[in-house]
């Protein structure tokens, strides 16, 4: 069936987006470690710190933190408290999960959308980092990208739990 193929294609696309972003998150994490170690080493041993290390670390934290969100969601690693729901019948589980994923999709989409708006607003103010003068607005795009991908991943999970709810 063509619709099956289509949903399969969408799933695969979302999967590769979340993994691609996860890959960037991983690289930046390693870079953050190396940069910080270098900075401390140069500062303590040669008394010549890397002046922009601190602000770069802040940017890197934003990238590594938010770009990992969707990948973490796809591997089912986000923290939740499962005391009651797992003891319910499959259909009730499907319904409850669907409601939660719907709400989760909503807030992730809102955060993504508003981060874009914030980015546009900040761009006009020309806010820049103090040492390197890196403009800050693109990093709100990173937040937006992370949450947009998270919202898409939640859609896949939502589809799965809706199927569970419809089984009956």
């Amino acid at each position, binding site marked *: 069936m063509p619709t099956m193929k289509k949903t399969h294609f969408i799933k695969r696309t979302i999967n590769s987006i979340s993994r691609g972003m996860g890959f960037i998150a991983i690289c930046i994490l390693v870079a953050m470690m190396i940069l910080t170690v270098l900075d401390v080493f140069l500062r303590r041993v040669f008394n010549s710190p890397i002046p922009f290390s601190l602000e770069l670390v802040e940017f890197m*934290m934003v990238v590594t933190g938010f770009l990992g969100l969707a990948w973490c969601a796809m591997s089912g690693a986000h923290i939740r408290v499962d005391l009651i729901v797992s003891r319910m019948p499959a259909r009730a589980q499907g319904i409850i999960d669907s409601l939660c994923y719907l709400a989760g999709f909503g807030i992730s989409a809102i955060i993504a959308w508003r981060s874009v708006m914030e980015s546009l607003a900040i761009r006009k103010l020309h806010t820049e980092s103090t040492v390197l003068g890196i403009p800050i607005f693109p990093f709100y795009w990173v937040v937006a990208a992370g949450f947009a991908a998270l919202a898409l991943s939640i859609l896949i999970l939502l589809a799965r739990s809706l199927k569970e709810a419809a089984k009956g």
Partner: protein
Amino acid sequence: MSPEYIGLIGVGFLVVLLFMRMWVGLAMAVLGFLGYAAITSIKNALLVAGSVPYSALANEAVAAVPLFILMGVVVSNTGVSGDLYHAAYKWLGQLRGGLAMSTVVACGGFAAMSGSSAATAATMGKVALPEMKKYNYDEKLSTGAVAAGGTIGILIPPSMGFILYGILTEESIGKLFMAGIIPGILEILFYIAVIFILCRSNATLGPAGPQIGFMEKVAALKYTWAMLVLFLLVMGGIYGGWFTPSEAGAIGAFGAIVISAVSRKMTRENLVTSILEAARTTAMIVLIIAGAFIFMKFMAVSRLPSWLADFVAGLQLPPMVIMLLILLLYIILGMFLDIYAAILLTLPILFPVIVSLGFDPIWYGVVMVRVMEVGLITPPMGLNVFILAGATNTPLGIIFRGIVPFLIADILHIALLVAFPGISLFLVRMM
């Protein structure tokens, strides 16, 4: 409707969403957003949604999260736990219950590299349980020692619990780390005492191992000294103010990679696994940090926390009684909630109360983290127990029964920390 009332309803709905097993971070974000909108306006809430996640993360202190996680996973994936255990065993093995004591000591050593209790229990369980089985140790004692010893992971720095506490309350993560050291060592001693007493009254629980010569004891340290040096460098650097906790985390992670590469324990495969694991755990914590900061905005405009502080002050109870009630609440929360989630959920509401009662926030951080350790080994959700049961096929009931004597030690240890804040604050005051 008064803002305080909306705040209270928001907290109620948050609990409902959590029980519906919604992801903790997103549940906090949803209610934070809706609550903020209800008290101020949708327009303001949308501004919060767009600005808070970025500002919550663009903070040097948050970088301590991924870096210390990386240090911990590298250490647990490269077999350092085995070295720690064998070194401790050479020194304590000839005592009755010596293998169980070694387990606790090795857990403490592992805790000094890792900020996670679950990782400590899982890693040490793999190494220590087969050994104790070989020497005919009682299953209740051996699993109890691993599960309880594992909880030390979040008390001895680096500790993810302290890092999150510091990020949320803007208390110094470095001071919190220092404050955890002495209580952590005391906890090890308490557990050793438990094992000593148990095995004294019943020698079959943990038969003594063979005598080991002094030179062999010293030789056993050869694999662990590098890790000890790394710990001293990381914590000493924070203590002496040479670098920030995040920088210490970077040095710790880098050092752990170098040490395991030099000692030929690092393969390309487990380096990749470690980095993947660290990035994924980071994302998991980042989502609850972002959610918690949105929720905090809601709590701030609702004035619920300050209302609660006034209410508690109006009760005319001695502050210590209130503290004990709060600690009881944390024991219960710890039984049901993930420890990181519990910290990020409750602090926005309860931290102002603690401060207004005049308690030292650093001391409180230690006691709170210590109290939540108890939840890791008590029913119904004792995470460490489940991890061990899953990893070793031991029935849950046996582990839970084995835990009981350690729980008694826990209560005495917590009472000591509460009664004498100096135990936690001694190193902090020396900084």
